[in-house]
């Protein structure tokens, strides 16, 4: 048992470390690692990934919230969409075959890798105020190198809709679906990129908790497997975040995106070949 725990723990540490470095999050690497490398059933893998997602996102959110990046009102409002989505996703997981879930996972993984590779902090135009966002008091300010910068929020209905999909994917696949959350806030709602990523992080824990309760009661969360995964990812992502603060990691990010892409293709292939 010691070897098993150590091997899974070390793999999770690496996954958490690379997940933090690339901004993809550790959870998204855990499922392909456990299923493809260790032959773990995808349901156990999803259960273990889900708890590691709660751990890392809550840990990171603690710092971002304290430093005033996250937009709490935007996050709270959109959590209506993500939690309901997560319930739908967890319910949907009962009706889909493991191979279908694996294929969807592969596609989402490909999109995440592509999004993290492509993303650029676009120049922020000042947006005009929006009626719904103003009523919901979403407009705020965030710290930049030149002091606090005001911003307006737009596209609330579209953002809300995309967030529902992010919730479904999170509940179905056991991931934070941060890439889709950022798409909703960065692209649809025109939030500054830094606010989008930190608010996404803030929301991931609540979204994952909504489906984790269901997975726990369904018996998907195995203690002996979840223990090394959760601890490994947590420690690894703390280390990765620390390194990010100082180092230039463009090459590593590129290499890791490529690895993620390969894993995604393998998951899709295995799904079609019926190996799950």
């Amino acid at each position, binding site marked *: *048992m*010691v070897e098993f*725990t150590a091997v899974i723990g070390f793999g999770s540490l690496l996954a958490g470390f690379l997940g933090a470095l690339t*901004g*993809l*999050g550790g959870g998204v690497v855990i499922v392909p690692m456990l299923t493809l490398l260790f*032959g*773990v*059933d995808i349901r156990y893998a999803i259960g273990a990934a889900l708890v590691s997602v709660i*751990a890392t*996102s*809550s*840990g*990171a*959110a*603690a710092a971002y919230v304290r*430093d*005033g990046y996250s937009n*709490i009102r935007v996050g*709270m*409002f959109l959590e*209506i969409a993500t*939690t309901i989505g*997560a319930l739908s996703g*967890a319910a949907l997981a009962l009706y889909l075959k493991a191979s279908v879930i694996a294929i969807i996972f592969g596609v989402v993984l490909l999109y995440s890798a592509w999004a993290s590779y492509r993303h650029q902090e676009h120049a922020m135009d000042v947006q005009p105020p929006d009626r719904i966002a103003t009523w919901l*008091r*979403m*407009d*705020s*300010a965030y*710290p*930049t190198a030149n*002091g606090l910068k005001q911003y307006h929020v737009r596209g609330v209905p579209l953002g809300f809709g995309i967030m529902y999909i992010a919730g479904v994917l999170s509940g179905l696949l056991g991931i934070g679906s941060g*890439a889709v*959350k950022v798409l909703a806030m960065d692209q649809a709602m025109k939030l500054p990129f830094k606010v989008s*990523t*930190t608010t996404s*992080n803030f929301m*991931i824990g*609540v979204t994952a*908790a*909504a*489906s984790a*309760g*269901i997975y*726990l*009661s*369904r*018996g*998907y*969360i*195995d*203690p*002996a497997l979840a*223990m*090394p995964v*959760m601890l490994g990812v947590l420690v690894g992502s703390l280390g990765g*975040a620390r390194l*990010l*603060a100082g180092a230039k990691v463009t090459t590593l990010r590129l290499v890791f995106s490529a690895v993620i892409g390969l894993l995604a293709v393998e998951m899709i292939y295995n799904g079609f070949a019926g190996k799950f």
Partner: protein
Amino acid sequence: MGNEPETPKKADVGKGHMGKGHMDASTDKRVDQLMGLLLRTGVLLAAAIVAIGGAVFVARHAEPVGSYRVFQGEPVQYRTLPGIVREAASFNGRGLIQLGLLLLIATPVARVAFSAGAFAYERDWVYVAVSLFVLAVLAYSLGSGHG
């Protein structure tokens, strides 16, 4: 996505929020700090309990327990709140791990409850309603299997 590089500049942050949506910068700042503390404490406490449970479990089981290749589902004592509490109370390794994981799941839930209280303190009733709605969805999810 999510974890972004830069370390925040504390000096800039000291000014707090001054967005239109915010009633009082210093109140918001204090609320943010308390929320950060709540999240951090929850995660660290959960991780500590999981680690203790893991140590107990690994010490008592030399050989791997079961296989993960075929999905069987967890036995009932590891999937309901009363079962998990009972197992953890008798210092069972897996019971302790599940208790830690339950605490971890409860951490964001506690954060939403805290938000509801903070918005009520700011008399922002729209967001009190939003927070309570999210809390209800979470309660439904957590209660769904534990009958």
